[in-house]
């Protein structure tokens, strides 16, 4: 898009004024429509793959259920009861028909509707992921700002090595170290679970963390945070390193731009220049990364939830896989896919809103 040749400024100013409202409207609708179509394609792809992969996996729920002394017709009877005796394609057809009407089937191990189970556990994982993201942005952001403020010096070197270290240790080992440090040596945080069982929770939704804030129950909120802090921190450390490194890189590039130099001549101090001028523009490219990392985060809580016995989706997912609870696995994977595409959409919209240039495109 070449800048107009400004032969005659006066005439030119009116011509390229910001595009009219309905033009932006049409652009947004087009974006949403294409995005919706791609989401459907992705979800369909995921549904097909997960359905057939877990049926190829050796070991089926019926074999798990056989007690000592069961006979072959027991096997046949139980398979029929759970509909596993029908050919795979028919099973898939039944499942998909059900999903379209919101019936994700019943879990074999818990004999509860999959949808209720999954939606019951989703808030816990979402809250954990959000808390981890917030911690990561705070940690990574501070590291990046300090690294930029003292760029070139020893302090930036130290931060780079710290980032390297945070990335080189898998998150479950951070979890292990945290348990030993703050769980056993200085028991200031809780080691497992999401809230102290003896507290009675006046919540209607499963979003304990947010609802306790909304209800201004800071005692409950503090207890929940004390439970979630270690798993969230274990998840946040590697993520903070990634965010920190990228934001610092982007900040350092922005600091060389002319408008930053101009701001310095206006008498602003270095720190204020970084925050007021550079941060916002440098944060934009990091935003898309944070969006992608957030989806990996949700997928990645499986191990941490297991380590901290945190009753989120990941914990349930591992049980489902170990017990070959096929309907439950399908439900969980499909929900992950939904969250993934949802978060991507939100990030793209956020990017457009935050970046003035795109807002009018």
């Amino acid at each position, binding site marked *: 898009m070449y800048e107009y040749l400004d032969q005659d400024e006066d005439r030119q100013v009116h011509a390229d004024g910001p595009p009219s409202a309905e033009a932006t409207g049409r652009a947004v609708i087009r974006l949403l429509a294409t995005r919706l179509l791609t989401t459907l394609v992705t979800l369909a792809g995921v549904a097909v793959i997960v359905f057939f992969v877990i049926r190829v996996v050796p070991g089926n729920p019926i074999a798990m259920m056989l007690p000592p*002394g*069961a006979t072959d017709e027991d096997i046949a009877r139980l398979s029929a009861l759970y509909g596993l005796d029908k050919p795979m394609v028919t099973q898939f057809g039944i499942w998909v028909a059900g999903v379209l009407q919101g019936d994700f089937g019943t879990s074999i191990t818990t004999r509860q509707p999959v949808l209720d*189970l999954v939606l019951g556990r989703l808030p816990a994982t979402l809250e954990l992921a959000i808390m981890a993201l917030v911690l990561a942005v705070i940690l990574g952001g501070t590291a990046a700002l300090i690294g930029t403020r003292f760029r070139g010096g020893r302090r930036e070197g130290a931060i780079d090595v710290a980032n390297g270290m945070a990335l080189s240790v898998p998150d479950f080992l951070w979890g292990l170290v945290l348990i030993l440090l703050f769980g*056993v040596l200085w*028991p200031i945080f809780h080691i497992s679970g999401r809230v102290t*069982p003896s507290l009675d929770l006046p919540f209607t939704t499963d979003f304990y963390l947010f609802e306790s804030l909304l209800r201004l129950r800071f005692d409950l909120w503090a207890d929940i945070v004390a439970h979630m802090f270690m798993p969230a921190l274990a998840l946040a450390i590697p993520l903070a390193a990634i965010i920190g490194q990228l934001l610092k890189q982007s900040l350092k590039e922005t600091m060389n731009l002319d408008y930053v130099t101009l701001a310095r001549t206006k008498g602003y101090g270095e720190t204020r220049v970084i925050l007021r001028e550079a941060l916002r523009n440098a944060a934009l490219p990091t935003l898309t990364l944070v969006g992608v990392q957030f989806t990996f985060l949700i997928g990645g809580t499986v191990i941490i939830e297991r380590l901290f016995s945190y*009753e989120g989706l990941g914990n349930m997912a591992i049980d489902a896989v170990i017990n070959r609870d096929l309907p439950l696995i399908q439900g969980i994977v499909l929900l992950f896919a939904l969250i993934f595409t949802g978060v991507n959409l939100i990030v793209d919209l956020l990017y457009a809103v935050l970046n003035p240039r795109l807002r009018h495109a």
Partner: protein
Amino acid sequence: MNLNRRSLLKLSAATMAAGTIGLPTFAQAIDELVIAYNVNLPSWDPTVGPSAVNPTIQGIYQSVFDQYILQQPDLSPAPGLLTEWGWNEDRTQVWMTVREGVTWHDGSPFTAEDVAWSLARVANPETGSPIQFVWGTLANHRVEGNRVIADVAQFDPTIFKWMYFLTGYVLPKAYYEKVGPEGFEAAPIGTGPYMVEKFERNAFVRLKANANYWGGKPDFDTVTIKFVTDAAARVAEVESGNAHVTLEVPYEEYDRLTQNGPLAGLAQPISDIGMIFLNDIEVMTDPNVRKAAAHAIDKQAIIDRLLSGYGVKIDTLQTPQYAAFDASITVPYDEAKAIELLAASGYGPDNPVKFKIQTTRGFKPKDYEMVQAIVGLWRKVGIEAEIEVYEIAKHFELRGADQLAPAAFYNWGNSVGDPTTSTGFAMFGPSPHSVWDGEDLIGMIGPLWGETDEAKRIEGWKAVDKYIAENALVIPLLQYVQPILAAPGVTVISHASGALLPHLMKRA
């Protein structure tokens, strides 16, 4: 085992300030007991579905529901919801007298109707009850006053033993029919020592003591069972004082915490054994190889070195607590004999026999390490075993389809101590659970299923065990010991079935 706090300090990434950190103080008087449990509770119906046959969660079911017959800590039966029971002379009918004055948790009275309905329900194939093949041997259950009578369609000597084993629970007929399966899952009630106050899936269950429990009100009014699936996390829970009791912790940690901390330890053998299934394929058809493999394993050294001494060496599938246990049957550790046997079949350290051994990893304590140790011992005598790790789900499928590798490590779960549920199901060819299909064994075991004379039946099973040991048709290894840790202020009575029962816990 030299415990040192320094080793712990040295481990933590940040170098700690010098000096040891005081152990968290334990509240002497425990008002609310917290137990860190090792598995999640998938479902509340103890009679249907996969969880009904999962031995590790029977402890939770036994806190909320009563079984027809009470199984005492030493596995022996005692009057439960049934005060007396038995067959008629020609064993065509069974009768049971039902305990009086018992109420369900919602206050409604417990009657013989509940027992008849419960028995009929698990006998009905449509309900998906996995033990239908046992309960199906009774039919036409009817109530006469406070007695329940049922016709014996097919005689099963162990029918009453199943009444204190898997799916042997009595459910509330009226309540169940009123609220239906989903309602029951959401708010289960039983006649047991504790009532379910609050259940958070994969997180915890809070139990309230049942004041008018027929077996006497349990000591602790409120019990919280937290589901903590990771062993190291369970240790941290107990060590930091967040939980008072926990089980299935690594033996090294059990030693460390019991030797110099306030925690008390309990390590009793339970009805859970570790064994190596042998499949009659490939090299395993050669008796010399099987016997050599059995004699080459120094079971006691493995128990002492790997399990810190917590384990009981066994040479048959019966443990000392079982009815058909015969101490005289032994398979001693004899490396020279193993080498001699292998030489007889032309094998030796330079020309080792090769086969694959399958095992799970992390399913039971040190399962993978034990197989590695066994493979190490075998390597000395000239057996080259290649380890293949698989998931427990794949093990069940392979075993069901009789495609297990020549050797497969497995643990045979909680049994009522009757030979049928240990040697029987494990070694009887046609049963989908057995791996060995030798005709000779099927011939020996066949008649014992219906044997009515108890003494003759037990002797028959002892002969089978002797035959199995002599021909090494399976390699029993050890009887597991269940490590339980308890904070001061609570004493735990361990149950031989491995079930951790809150109502057996007393205030110290």
